């Protein structure tokens, strides 16, 4: 669905991404993990047209979207849940959701109803200012707001940031649910363990370059990935991989 080929980008004169190639297939959850400052957010913002691509091609279902402005990119069916949520704090929950549909209007009422059904807590809080929601509720609102654009592909930037462990699991379950409902997701995370538990495949980014790319379970079991991003826990073995699969099944089953 989304294909990046040797994409470079950056800010002014400082390059950040160096020939990044990455692919997300329809119906997949793909994780992008990496340390602070690796360039993960820059990659998502380059795809959204907020950061200028200096080289390479960005295709959505074969069409090059690298030269489009952000509104046009949103209309092609991409939406991003930005890092730290970036809600419109003093606007109501419902107004935030309506903003999500700004570039792709048409059946806004239907989409609102769908998001309220998906996140009943938001329906309860629809008239409340977004900044008065709890962190977990704010993350749900940020996801629902992006869904309002009816995206074919959702880009999530660190959805677990600042959330308690239970809420992290909850959010990951929501992401898995989006995919189960036919969505496709590219999710950036510091919390590699949480995201790789629900992802199909993962990429590791270091200093603006992709260094590893493998099925999620294999990345979780990979020694060097464990050392760098999972606190070195566990040994690389079939047993570890089996444990991971069991945990993944548990999360996806909503337990």
């Amino acid at each position, binding site marked *: 669905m989304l294909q990046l080929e040797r994409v470079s980008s950056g800010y002014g004169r400082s390059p950040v991404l160096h020939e990044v190639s990455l692919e997300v297939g329809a119906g997949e959850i793909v994780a992008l993990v990496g340390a602070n400052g690796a360039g993960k957010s820059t990659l998502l913002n380059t795809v*959204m047209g*907020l950061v200028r691509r200096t080289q390479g091609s960005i295709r959505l279902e074969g069409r090059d979207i690298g030269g489009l*402005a*952000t*509104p046009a*990119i*949103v*209309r092609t069916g991409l939406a*991003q849940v*930005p890092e730290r949520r*970036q*809600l*419109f*704090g*003093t*606007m109501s929950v419902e*107004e935030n959701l*309506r*903003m*999500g549909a*700004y*570039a*792709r*209007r048409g059946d806004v009422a239907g989409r609102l109803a769908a998001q309220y059904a998906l996140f009943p807590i938001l329906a309860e809080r629809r008239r409340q200012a977004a900044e008065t929601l709890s962190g977990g509720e704010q993350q749900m609102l940020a996801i629902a*707001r992006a869904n309002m*654009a009816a995206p074919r592909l959702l880009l999530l930037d660190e959805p677990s940031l600042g959330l308690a462990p239970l809420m992290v699991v909850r959010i990951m379950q929501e992401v898995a649910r989006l995919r189960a409902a036919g969505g496709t997701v590219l999710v950036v995370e510091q919390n590699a363990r949480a995201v790789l538990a629900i992802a199909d495949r993962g990429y590791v980014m270091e200093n603006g370059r992709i260094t590893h790319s493998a099925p999620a379970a294999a990345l979780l079991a990979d020694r060097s990935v464990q050392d760098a991003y999972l606190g070195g826990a566990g040994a690389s073995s079939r047993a570890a991989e089996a444990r991971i699969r069991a945990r993944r099944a548990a999360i996806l089953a909503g337990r």
Partner: protein
Amino acid sequence: MDLSVFVQLLLPGLTTGCVYALVALGFVLCANVSGVVNFAQGEYVMLGGVIGASLLAQGMPLAAAIAGATAAGALLGALQERLTLAPVRAAPDFIQITITLGVAVVLRGVALIAFGKDPLSMPGFSGDGVFEVAGAVLPVQSLWVWGASAALLAAVFLFLMHSDAGRAVRACAINRQAARLMGVDAERLTLLVFALAGASAALAGVVVTPIVLANWDAGIAYGLKGFVGAILGNFRSPVVALAGGLGIGVLESFAAGYVSSGYKDAIVYGVLLAYLLARGGVFVFGRAALLSR
């Protein structure tokens, strides 16, 4: 205190206050979508007045003259944005702000050349009669000013709270980057807001002309006082900016009536200065308002 004197100062103060309030609102809206304080804002009041008065003098019907002046305000506002701000969008804010000061000087100069140095007058929209409230005597035109201002404010409020574009303006004010991510085209929105601000200031300028006359050099005072109102609202709150604009009109009128008209500006700016010092200074303010976006 004599009530009729009080009312005789209060109500005309509210009349000029309406104009300041609309200018203040224009300041806040333009600053929030474009990041630029448009110091030419007050000139659109002046332009509305001189254009409306001369269209009428050339024999146009009143309604057409009002509409023409308002449309000219919208057009000039849009042109200012396209020609002088859009090309330098990437430049630092203070450069863009300085450019708006230059535009103000140019607009003033063009008005002087095109419309002459003598004040232009216009008859009241429904005659030059007066009416009496609580012992105070006011021109009937005051009702037009209040009515037009109330209608404009209601329209702006409806636009901001209940239209997609208005919601996007507020979203830009809260978080520009997030608004862009929703697909808001900030460029188009900026153009729209400059046109709206130009139109509403020009309309305000036409409706007050029968009371205060229209003069090529009147814009700077409207601009400064509207700016004070916008500062009181921290360049964020349209509602406080409005109230601030009205309050300044009243304060000015009381200062002129109870103290001396020679001191009214000194008193208005003195109050602003005291307020800014109490809140930490204009620079802290400017930064808080403009850099927090």
